[in-house]
Each structure stands twice: as C-alpha cells, then as structure tokens.
C-alpha cells in the first residue's frame, strides 16, 4: 500500500519524540552555559607552559627556550627569545614566549617534540576576546600554568609526566639532543 513506508517512519519519529522526555539517550543535548560544559579529561585545545612551584612561576618554569617547538610547529605560531643574563650568557629560559592562538590549530606537535615536558595541552576553550590582535596573542605570563593545574585538567597524563621526570632525576639523564631535522 502506498504510504505505509511513510507511516512506519512517522512511528519512529513519534517514538523518538515522546521517548526523548524519558530517555536521556534520545535527547543528549547539553544546554551549554547553564548546564556546564562538556570538556572532558582528555580534550586538548591550545598549549600552555608548565611550572612546578606555585610561589615562583618564572623561576620554576620547565621551558629552557631550546626552540624545538618553534621549529616544529606546523603553522609557525610560536615565537621564542631566550633570556640572557648580565654577562650575555644564555639563561636557559625564555624572555619572550608568544603563541598566536588565532593561528594555533591545537595539533599537539609541540607537546610531542618537547624534550623537557614543559609545554602541554590545555582544555580551556572560552577564548573569545574583543581585541583580535593583542587579545589573541598569548604572552609568557598568560601561558604559564602550574603543574597542579595540569593535574586538575589531565590527571592521568600529568601523573605519567611526573613519574617520567622523577625517573629522569634519579639517574642523571643525558641532555636531550636536538633531533636530526
């Protein structure tokens, strides 16, 4: 009979419509700002720089300004200048560390190539700003976040990193050399 297929389909839509009042699986929509956000413990968005001691963020930042991430970043959104002490010797930390998050695509390659576990992925996503030039250019001060914060957003990964660093400190590891590229 012509029209039986349509009626069958209507039965399905009716089932889904009325079912959505009782079955959560049929209506998984999350009302975003009111009902919280759906950021999970494994989502990645933009990078941040890790420091260890909450009292002294600049002194205990892990980054040594080796510039590997700057070189490997596919869209070239990282800009690093190494700090120099009074004698002009490199101080092994960045004076400037900028990430242009309007260019960053969150690919995590900087995290993978970093030999010092100093750059990690953040899961924050509410990044809108009225200033499209300065507001989207994150400076060193904006990017620095504590290891405690890292434990909060990605607990498993942070624990792994801590274990790896502890193992490295036990036996004085050879300084990681620059990759062949």
């Amino acid at each position: 009979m012509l029209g039986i297929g349509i009626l069958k389909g209507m039965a399905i839509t009716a089932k889904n419509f009325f079912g959505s009042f009782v079955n959560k699986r049929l209506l998984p929509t999350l009302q975003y700002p009111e009902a919280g956000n759906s950021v999970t413990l494994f989502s990645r968005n933009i990078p941040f720089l890790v420091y260890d001691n909450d009292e002294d963020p600049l002194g205990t930042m892990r980054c040594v300004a080796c510039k590997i991430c700057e070189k490997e970043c596919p869209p070239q959104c990282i800009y690093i200048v190494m700090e120099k002490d009074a004698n002009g010797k490199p101080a092994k930390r960045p004076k400037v560390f900028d990430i242009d998050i309007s260019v960053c695509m969150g690919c995590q390659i900087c995290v993978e190539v970093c030999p010092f576990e100093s750059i990690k992925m953040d899961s924050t996503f509410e990044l809108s700003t009225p200033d499209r030039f300065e507001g989207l250019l994150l400076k060193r001060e904006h990017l620095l976040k504590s290891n405690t914060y890292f434990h909060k957003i990605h607990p498993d990964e942070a624990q792994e990193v801590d274990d790896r660093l502890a193992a490295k400190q036990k036996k004085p590891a050879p300084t990681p050399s620059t990759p062949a590229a």
Partner: protein
Amino acid sequence: MNTETIAPREYQIYSGDDLRTNVLEISMGPQHPSTHGVFRMDVSLDGETVVKLKPVFGYLHRNHEKIAETTSYLGSMPYTDRLDYFCSMTNNWAYALAVEKMAGLAVPERAEYIRVIMAELTRLQNHASLVGFLTNDLGASGTPLLYAIREREHILDLFEWASGARMMCNYMRFGGVRNDLPSGWLAQCKKVVDDFPAFMDEFETLLTGNEIILSRCQNVGVLPRDLAINASITGPCLRASGVDYDIRKVDKYGVYDRFDFKVPLGSVGDCYDRFMIRLLEMRESVKILKQALATIPEGPVNDSKARNFRPKPAEAYGRIEGPKGELGFYLVSDGTPKPHRYHVRPPSFINLTVLEDMCLGQKIADAVIILGSIDIVLGEVDR
C-alpha cells in the same frame, strides 16, 4: 435570422510548440545550502531540465600540497585532518601509509588493529551523516540527520578519548599511532559498536521503505558502469554502479586480510543504490569492528625512532579505502626532511567529475540529490 451565419467557431488551442524559450543559466552556490560547502554549479536549464552543468570549485583552496612541501613529514600530519574533516582518522592513515611505504617503516601489530578500528568507526560516522545529509537535501528537514548526528556523537566521544580531539584527531604517526588507547576505551567502544545495529535498524525502517525517498532517488542520476570505471570513480559510488572494487579487498593494506567482510554492490547505479550501499557498508563495518575488538593484541603501538627522519630519495604512493573512495598520497623524497613532491588523490574531487553526466536530463531539484549522493567534502575537493 439567417441560420447560415450561426456556426460553431473554430478555436485554436495553443499547443506551446512554437513557444520560444531561452536556456536559463543559474549560478547555484557557493553559498547555497544544498551544495555542502562552498561549491558552485553553473547550471543551464531548459525549463526545469538540466542541459549543462559546470562545477566550479576552489573557494576553499588552502594550498595544502605546497604547504606540505615546506614542512617536515610530521608537520603535514595535522594538515591532513583538514582535508576531509569528517574522516580525519582515515586521512591520517593514508598519509602515514605513504610515508611508511617510502621509508620502509614497520607498524606494530596493535597499532594496525587500532588503525582498523579507528578507520571503521570513521566509516560508520561518515556514512551515517551522509545519509542524514542526503535526506536533508530531499527535504526531510533534518530529522534523520539529527538521529545520525546523535549517534555520531558517541563515536566522536571515542575519538576524543583516544586522541584528544573530536574531529581534528591527528592520531596516526609514522610507524604506529600517537599513544596507546586509554584504559576502558575498548570496553566503551564495544558498547558503542554493539548499540550501533539498533540505530541502523531504526534508520532503515525510517528511510528505506519511505515512498518519497523511493520515488525521488530511484532511477535518478544513473551512473553507468563503464563511465564509472573510465572516470576513475572510487568508493561507494563505484560499487553502487556494480563494480566490485574495494581497496580493502584489493590491496589488503594494514590487517584487513584477517577480517571477514563482504563488499555490497549496487545494480543500477542510481541515487538509491548509492544510498543503500552506505547503509549496507555500515553493517559490514560493524562486522569488522566486532572482529577487530575481539582479537586486538597487546603490545607497543608506535616506533619512537620514527619521529624525525630523512627518508632516502624515493617515491611512494599509499592508498586506502576511505569512506568516500580511494584516498591516496603520492610522495617524492629527495633525501631532505621535507617532501620534494606531495600530491593528494582526493576521492571527493575525482568523484565530482561525473556530476554533469549524471545530472544531464534530470530536473534541477534532482541535481541537488545527485550531488548529495556523491558525498563530497569541500575541504578535500579544493585542498
């Protein structure tokens, strides 16, 4: 009264044969909702019938190939996500396969299984949303599309859990995958895969017998078998025309030779065949997933030495059966860390070349369905 003057008059009923009409040229797109992105069709219409159709694209050109020639091999991996943004996992795999072929890298067993699982999950969510979008083109106002998207969310959650991102996964690496699956992932994946056939049953009840779909899709946009082969159409479009060609069976890349699955074939090559092939392929993908999840071995997932390397001067073409067709990467190395030549063989782009042949003689409203049934993503067409 003179009766001789009273006679029925002769009326001429206008037949319309000598009506002179011009061919109407319409520029459909690039901002047309039915063109699946920034795609334009220059259509010439005689009444409502298509007499000429010229696809115009390039609005989303992002210089992908040239950018890849100026970055390292690893650096192009995240860019491949952005080709066909519905299937980033399979794009990653095709590129990784090409580099592995060129550099002679071996892939651990577990990584091969993870790749198969990810690729089949990608196929499931791509086909489900394609069928949803196709019904949307038919005027179904999004209801089947939203059911498909609802199901797709569960698969995207799995992708996010494993790789950190829902769509731009960037998960495959040369010689494996980036990280091992988190604990509990496989159990959740099993649950999603087990639930999927229930969704497909519902979806098929909703759609396959629907008279509107039948009358609008059957015998519309027929792609003859010979033309499909000559125009090097691949993927579901080719199989809908009745050609038994699936790279998973022909090439047996990865570990596909270990799984038992069938290749569904169409007989007519019309829109309805292309639509049904997708539904049937989803069933086969679920079969593959069940086998892969049951037999996935333990072990390492990548080769940490393969991160930064300079391949010897060589060339390679790696191809996989993507959800849309044969996705291939052609690479030429000159011994430096950057590829000398990097070329993508995008299935969407090549499948689009027969759009005019399928649309000629059809109504303009059918051209929309025909375009929808090819399954294009403009990120891949324009690159």
